[in-house]
């Protein structure tokens, strides 16, 4: 029922998203079969909307998995160094194989995010007293370290501005033929949904998981794989989208609980809706120009997050 309502909202927003932008396209143009405008829709608008939906679903679902794996509500791709690792992967790719294609770029980013996630998880497990705030702080520091190494190399090679530009979440340059990697999030999301119950058990901790006969390490590895695949493909196509993996899962959890079998579809739908709203807002505010989505997500997201913290404290 809730999922149905959210699906309708999502479809509506997706529809709106198709018709917002610098070029004036109306629904009537499609009915009148205006070839030029239909081409514009299929080359630019549809890829953009599809990428937004997939990135929204992917990043928020990744957030949930990371929170289950660390048993910490404040862990997300933003607060665990995952995005920084993807950036480093891209940088290494630029340095060593600048002429290679997108596939190599993808593999490079994926390998780095995967390794960084394993390392982060190892660090978290080594921490004896797992204070709720301590873990994401460690994650932020961890991300800071990775980020500074990347920046060091970027400075040496005079590409600081380029690297910053890739990382700034931005959907305006998404065009047909240049965004398809983001469809790699689909298998990851599908696997996560199949394993929803197992990820809930993982969230109960290692002892509980073992008691229930779950192969803890195997599920953790599957989780790491899904998160790395999603984050790296989103970062490559659209750049980093901060906060999404943090806010959406937390809001859903506060309202609907943590039984992933039940809430995962809600998380996925809300993630896509949130991102579409942010994108439409960014396109409308200084029309006909655009504010990059990283900025709108950060602003709207951090406001929601602050409210969330205050609400939780109460």
């Amino acid at each position: 029922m809730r999922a149905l309502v959210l699906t309708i909202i999502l479809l509506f927003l997706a529809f709106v998203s198709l018709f917002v932008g610098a070029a004036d396209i109306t629904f009537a143009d499609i009915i009148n079969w205006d070839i030029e405008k239909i081409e514009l829709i299929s080359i630019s608008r549809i890829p953009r909307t599809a990428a937004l939906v997939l990135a929204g679903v992917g990043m928020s679902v990744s957030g949930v998995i990371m929170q289950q794996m660390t048993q910490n509500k404040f862990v997300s791709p933003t607060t665990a160094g995952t995005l920084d690792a993807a950036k480093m992967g891209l940088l290494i790719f630029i340095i060593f194989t600048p002429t290679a294609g997108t596939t190599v770029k993808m593999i490079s980013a994926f390998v780095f995010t995967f390794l960084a996630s394993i390392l982060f998880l190892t660090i978290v497990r080594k921490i004896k007293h797992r204070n709720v705030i301590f873990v994401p702080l460690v994650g932020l520091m961890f991300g800071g370290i990775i980020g500074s190494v990347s920046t060091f190399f970027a400075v040496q090679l005079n590409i600081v501005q380029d690297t910053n530009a890739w990382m700034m979440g931005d959907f305006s340059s998404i065009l047909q033929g240049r965004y398809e990697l983001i469809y790699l999030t689909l298998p990851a999301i599908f696997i996560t949904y199949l394993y929803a119950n197992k990820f809930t058990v993982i969230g109960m901790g290692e002892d509980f998981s073992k008691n229930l006969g779950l192969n803890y390490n195997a599920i953790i590895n599957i989780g790491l794989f899904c998160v790395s695949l999603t984050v790296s493909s989103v970062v490559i196509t659209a750049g980093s989208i901060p906060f999404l993996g943090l806010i959406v899962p937390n809001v859903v959890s506060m309202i609907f609980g943590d039984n992933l079998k039940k809430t995962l579809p809600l998380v996925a739908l809300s993630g896509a809706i949130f991102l579409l709203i942010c994108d439409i807002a960014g396109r409308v505010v200084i029309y006909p120009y655009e504010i990059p989505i990283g900025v709108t997500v950060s602003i709207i997201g951090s406001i929601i997050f602050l409210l969330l913290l205050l609400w939780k404290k109460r």
Partner: protein
Amino acid sequence: MIEVKDITKQYGDNVVLDNVGMQFHKGKVTSLIGSNGAGKSTLLSIISRLLSQDGGIVMVDEKNVTEYKNKMLAQRLSILKQSNHIRLKLTVRELVSFGRFPYSQDKLTESDYNMVDRAIQFMDLKDIENSYIDELSGGQKQRAYMAMVVAQDTEYVLLDEPLNNLDMKHSVQTMKTLRRLADEWGKTIIIVLHDINFASHYSDYIVALKDGKIVYHDETENIINENVLKDVFGLKITICEIDKKRICNYFN
């Protein structure tokens, strides 16, 4: 039957368990007692494969635990640890349903739901089954966790200091429930206890550990004895009999 043979565990030079061997009686309540650091919880964790031993083997129904598939072992043996704090926002019913995970994984069957209902009834949780566990009191939470173990419906139920953080009323309630699980449902209960009086009152057998070794194991009445307890705890304990139950006074 659960049997452990020559179990050894050490952290660095510190030997926590030293060649421990023991057989636990089926369908009975067995308490593990001993001072802090005697190795009780470590032994329990090793039996329930949460911790791996450095030497020795654990046999469950004449088969080495390492030969069991995770799922199969989870249908025979369950463990509830004191440190099990779930931070997830799940309802009591959802939590208890996860007790059926070893049997049906994702898709619960009719009989799974029956078992969940029985467990909720048994632990008297019917009126709060739809509450979130993070909103419950300590005693209710403990009952919810125990209901999950009851729903898991294993022959062997292991509990690590289940009375920690519980008040007297809830402690007694917990022990009575365990007694019923053994007497009415035929479960084998192995439990780590700190309060010797709870062990004296509710268990059939007592296993006493000291410095990583089993120093005594016998029926309860043979262990609740001033000389034995003095040896185990290094404390002078006076025993008096009230209503045919032995009460240990260790406050002097």
